[in-house]
């Protein structure tokens, strides 16, 4: 009888069943973090408020998980009913007790030795649907693992790593499908978004981010350049259940810095694509940087908000783009509503009525080097911004930095780097960063918390009027309304990850990867 009671208790801690409806209604269970951004709307906002602006200064370490790998960690944990799921570069998925940090299971994917990557063997996290964990491995496989044991249910190849494909993105679970992105923008891949049957791993649809012959937009590529035009999809998209549309950002056109070999606007690179979640059919697109020559991927998480825009309630998608501009779009049509620069930029005189950049002359990379702000790292980058419906503010982790851009040769060889140039830092410039709070519908600056160096970590905002983010080795909390510093913690390793929050029992936790470890904080008992 006693053993049965223990069994029941244990089983109770293991429901691990997350049907689509739970993710759809994630706001009804703020104790959990069920999808990459916490919610389908990409806001990275939590309704938890046990930790608030009045007590955040008392935060302390609850537990630490040392990973044992040498890779930098970009993981954004998933937490379900007291169980956490994280990834560790280059090839590990783990399940931990979210209250103590004890490890339930660890899965390791064997990866080929001849893998070529542009930017480190990183991974940003998993997705959960029903009783399975979904993981995109660095060699571009999609793998379904049993949430209780870590055992492989199925493993399918998304694309051939030998051609430069790789995966670093957390997949997105929608209805009965797993939607995936792809990386490889520096290897001349042809980007796409895929959807797989969650039960079997069978591919249900693929939508290329570069239109093929006969499709609208194909003529924005010169000759055969569309075949190696990149436009990868390496950060998780958002989902709008009302319109059944999933919105994904696309990356740079390839080669990155030499646009001579791909004349035209190069659709749909550096764009938001709104795809029907059932069929992958393109509903609308908006391109932020036509014919990009500065590697300004537009893979930032699309943030879906419902707000009054010029007096009218609107369904919006907003983003701080790597090209230095903040954009407000109508997410039902993709129509441009408003935009303005949020960091220093020297390449555009502004946006026209359609939201198209009015590019200044002599801003392209040259063989000798051409000075342009922002740098190729952009005004911001892949790490998540946050939006708080309480304050109406969009919190952008930003970079103030310029660069000399070089144009080099661009010669496509399958599986080889195909970037056509590079950049050099500006001598004597002291680049810096900030957490910049923008009015979400106007892009006007509300407050600015200056960082010593350009931001490299994401932002979490909460109902407790707190914003969490990081700078170099410091994790910190700010007052969401004012930007005032509430608390800081030096983690002793560089932070290039997104924070999440969750609750187990009656205690709220905040988690962030620091260096080669995962740190979890809570208030004292």
């Amino acid at each position: 009888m006693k053993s049965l009671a223990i069994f029941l208790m244990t089983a109770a801690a293991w429901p691990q069943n997350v049907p689509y409806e739970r993710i759809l209604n994630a706001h009804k269970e703020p104790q959990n973090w069920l999808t990459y951004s916490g919610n389908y709307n990409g806001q990275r906002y939590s309704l938890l408020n046990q930790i608030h602006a009045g007590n955040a200064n008392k935060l302390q370490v609850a537990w630490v998980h040392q990973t044992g790998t040498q890779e930098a960690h970009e993981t954004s944990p998933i937490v379900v009913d007291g169980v956490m799921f994280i990834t560790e570069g280059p090839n590990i998925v783990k399940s931990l007790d979210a209250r103590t940090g004890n490890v339930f299971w660890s899965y390791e994917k064997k990866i080929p030795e001849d893998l070529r990557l542009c930017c480190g063997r990183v991974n940003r996290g998993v997705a959960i649907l029903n009783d399975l964990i979904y993981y995109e491995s660095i060699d571009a496989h999609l793998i379904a693992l049993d949430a209780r044991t870590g055992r492989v249910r199925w493993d399918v190849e998304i694309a051939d790593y030998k051609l430069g494909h790789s995966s670093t993105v957390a997949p997105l679970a929608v209805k009965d499908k797993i939607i995936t992105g792809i990386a490889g923008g520096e290897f001349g891949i042809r980007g796409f978004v895929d959807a797989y049957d969650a039960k079997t791993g069978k591919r249900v649809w693929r939508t290329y981010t570069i239109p093929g012959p006969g499709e609208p937009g194909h003529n924005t590529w010169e000759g055969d350049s569309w075949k190696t035009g990149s436009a990868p999809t390496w950060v998780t998209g958002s989902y709008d259940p009302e319109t059944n549309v999933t919105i994904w950002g696309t990356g740079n056109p390839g080669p990155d810095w030499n646009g001579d070999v791909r004349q035209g606007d190069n659709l749909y690179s550096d764009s938001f694509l709104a795809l029907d979640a059932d069929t992958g059919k393109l509903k609308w697109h908006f391109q932020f940087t036509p014919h990009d020559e500065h590697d300004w991927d537009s893979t930032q998480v699309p943030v879906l908000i419902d707000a009054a825009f010029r007096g009218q309630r609107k369904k919006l998608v907003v983003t701080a783009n790597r090209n230095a501009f903040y954009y407000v779009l109508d997410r039902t049509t993709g129509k441009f509503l408003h935009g303005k620069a949020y960091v220093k930029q020297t390449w555009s005189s502004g946006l026209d009525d359609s939201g198209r950049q009015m590019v200044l002359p002599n801003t392209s990379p040259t063989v000798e080097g051409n000075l342009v702000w922002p740098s190729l790292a952009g005004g911001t980058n892949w790490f998540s911004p946050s939006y708080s419906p309480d304050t109406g503010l969009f919190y952008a982790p930003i970079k103030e930095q310029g660069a000399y851009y070089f144009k080099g040769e661009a010669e496509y060889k399958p599986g080889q780097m195909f970037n056509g140039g590079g950049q050099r830092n500006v001598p004597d410039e002291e680049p810096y960063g900030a957490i910049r709070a923008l009015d979400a519908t106007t892009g006007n600056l509300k407050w600015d918390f200056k960082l010593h160096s350009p931001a490299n970590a994401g932002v979490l905002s909460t109902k407790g009027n707190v914003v969490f983010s990081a700078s170099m080795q410091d994790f910190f909390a700010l007052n969401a309304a004012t930007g005032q510093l509430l608390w800081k913690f030096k983690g002793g390793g560089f932070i290039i990850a997104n924070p999440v929050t969750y609750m187990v029992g009656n205690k709220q936790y905040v988690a962030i990867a620091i260096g080669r470890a995962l740190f979890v904080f809570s208030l004292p008992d």
Partner: protein
Amino acid sequence: MRLAAVFLTTVLAAQEKPPEKITLPTAEADLARGKALYLGSCTYCHGPTGDGGKGANLARPELARAKTDGDLVRIIETGIPGTEMPGAWHMVRRELLQTAAFVRTLGKVEVTPVPGDAARGKALYDKHGCATCHTVKQGNAFAGGLMGPDLSAIGLRRSAAHLRESLVNPGASLPEDFVNTVVILKSGKTVSGRRLGEDTFSVLLRDAAGNNHVFSRSGVREVKRIRGESPMPSYQDKLSASELDDLICHLASLKEAQ
């Protein structure tokens, strides 16, 4: 892509590569392209004619760190860890070879001997107390102060012209780590020295006496980076023209590999 990560990956990947035999291109078009690439990516440190400056003097027949063409290509591709030499990861293979080929042409010049007497220069180095701030490796030990850059291999890393400029006008080109930093506290107190580290919440400084300080940003009014100004005095008026030659000759002879 993310720049730092790219650099790291390239370096790691490069360390695993076996030594390679390489034939550099000789066609005029390749050398012209190599020159353009060199002017874009390398001149800021190595100078347009390769005679150095901030970077090593490349206008010499043999390069200490790149005796073979394979070494040269590898260094251009991956940089030299622990130094200011970054990797040119943005270049494709052919461009690396073209750049290396052009760098080799820079060495086909008559080497200008550094005038002066190194032994007399060493005596001047000691007499003027250079070791108060600078270290030179002697055998297995390091001797000297920490306020200035380590000079153990300065003869490999700086041209004679650059050494001269550094003695005459020390503020003209300071390594980033040695830019004089002044921390002005809210209390009014001022501390200056070499910046050891700085982040959003703190500033670390080593003062002229060698003491390490850590300041919380909340107590700091301002952090000034004094560019164009060095804690080192100019030796233009302290040394005669021939003494200056002797001291430069001595510094140019310091080639202890680190």
